[in-house]
């Protein structure tokens, strides 16, 4: 799949922002006043910034409000609802913390749940697609949620929790990669099943419909950089997990913590790029490509 920068930005930043909001909602840290303001500002900057970035890949962003109508069937529509609900609830809760020094625990808990639900709905947009076998697994929501929680803990300064969650997220990432590598073969979809020509013999794509590329080949068949996938996986794992874990085990300083956050962010970017670039859509079979 084409790794559109707007979508990579969106899933990375929003995931991190909603992860931080979840921890803030749980009162970790339970700071008030200006400190709380800074935490909430960062969380909203990431979450809202990511959501805004996602509208850049829409053909008609001016009609975006229509996306709230189909929550009964569409995960994208559910994501719209849940993200707005999370931002509203956490906004109210944050206002209490910043301006009144109040910790409305039930509201915070609800906000935290909604924040994680937002990440879940985002992941379900990809998980639901049977056409992309690498995404079509329960491991995808686990991947998104563990990433969001680990990044959130890191940003919230919950060092002990962050250590554990970073290790869990790394394990989820590893499992997701291992499963993903055989997913297309396991799905059973081949050119033979795509054309129904299997009973006659072995089909091979002979001529594409047109000599040039089209929307489908540009959007679904992305092979650039796949050759370097193994190397990029290593880079992602080191930046997103190994580096922060090492930095967190050193004596604490704000500089090191900031470095850990930046490393994690960069690593998640690389991982998300791979999430798209390595994903193969079954329509590629019709074009003799994957």
């Amino acid at each position, binding site marked *: *799949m084409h790794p559109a920068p707007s979508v990579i930005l969106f899933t990375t930043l929003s995931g991190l922002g909603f992860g931080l909001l979840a921890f803030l909602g749980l009162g970790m840290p339970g700071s008030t006043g200006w400190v709380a303001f800074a935490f909430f500002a960062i969380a909203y900057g990431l979450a809202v910034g990511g959501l805004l970035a996602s509208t850049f*890949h*829409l*053909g*008609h*962003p001016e*009609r*975006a409000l*229509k*996306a*709230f*109508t*189909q929550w*009964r*069937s*569409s*995960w*994208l*529509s559910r994501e*719209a609802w849940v993200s707005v609900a999370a931002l509203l609830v956490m906004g109210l809760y944050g206002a209490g913390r910043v301006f009144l020094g109040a910790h409305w625990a039930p509201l915070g808990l609800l906000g935290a749940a909604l924040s994680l639900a937002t990440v879940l709905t985002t992941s379900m*947009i990809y998980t*639901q*697609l*049977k*056409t*992309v076998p690498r995404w079509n697994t329960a491991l995808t929501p686990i991947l998104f949620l563990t990433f969001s929680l680990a990044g959130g803990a890191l940003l919230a300064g919950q060092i002990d929790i962050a250590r554990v969650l970073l290790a869990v997220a790394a394990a989820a990432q590893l499992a997701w990669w291992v499963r993903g590598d055989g997913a297309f073969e396991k*799905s*059973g*979809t081949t*050119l033979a*099943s*795509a*054309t*129904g*020509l299997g*009973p*006659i*013999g*072995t*089909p*091979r*794509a*002979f*001529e*594409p*419909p*047109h000599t*040039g*590329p*089209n*929307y*489908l080949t540009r*959007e*679904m068949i992305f092979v650039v950089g796949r050759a370097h996938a193994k190397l990029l996986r290593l880079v992602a794992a080191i930046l997103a997990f190994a580096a922060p874990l090492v930095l967190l085990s050193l004596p604490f300083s704000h500089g090191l913590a900031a470095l850990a956050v930046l490393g994690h962010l960069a690593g998640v970017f690389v991982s998300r790029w791979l999430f798209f670039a390595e994903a193969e*859509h*079954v*329509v590629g079979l*019709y*074009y003799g490509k994957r």
Partner: protein
Amino acid sequence: MTLLPDRTEKKLGLVIDLDTCVGCHACVVSCKGWNTENYGAPLSDQDPYGADPSGTFLNRVHSYEVQPETGPAQLIHFPKSCLHCDDAPCATVCPTGASYKRVEDGIVLVNEADCIGCGLCAWACPYGAREMDAAEKVMKKCTLCVDRIYNDNLPEEDRVPACVRTCPSGARHFGDLGDPDSDVSQLVAARGGMDLMPELGTKPVNKYLPPRPKDGLDRDIDVLAPWLAPVAEDPKGFLGWLDRALGKIDGKTTGGR
């Protein structure tokens, strides 16, 4: 509404005969022509006369080579447009309600005024039947020529999809696949019509008729063949020497060597 109807009154769709399709792409052209001039946004082209042309099509013809276990390979031309799936994943993922399946005839359509151009439906379609128009930024797909089949302004013989009307080899058939007595249903039953990617559970309405088995070549092609043996012989004498000498330079030889 992107929720799928429990059932549709009719299942209008196409039956495509892979045995007779000659790969002329006439249906591609007529589809593009009709759908550029009629329902919805035109099908745009980018850089049409330049070095890197591309454009939006609702119907494309692929060609596949099939190698049987024994005997020569076969070339199959393979037109592909929306299959108007009963369990259309493209409709349910749509957040705006722009994509929907009609209750009255099962046609899957896009209401372009509601489409935000998120492209998710194209990701959900296994068949590559949806293309985002690069100029209009809305999702385009086969409409089953909904503006022809019910169009009283057209002569009756034209009230079929443009691709069906145009096909010079009669490889495309249109009808109600929900009615077991319809011509198309009978054709599917008689010829063993099949679904594409049945394992994905989309339950396509459109069916494909597999190519019929080919005749074998188990005897002389022609009784005259022995009298038509090739007469080319190796050149001798001076010409032979010249041929060998030139062959040393360009690596080619005359005759069967």
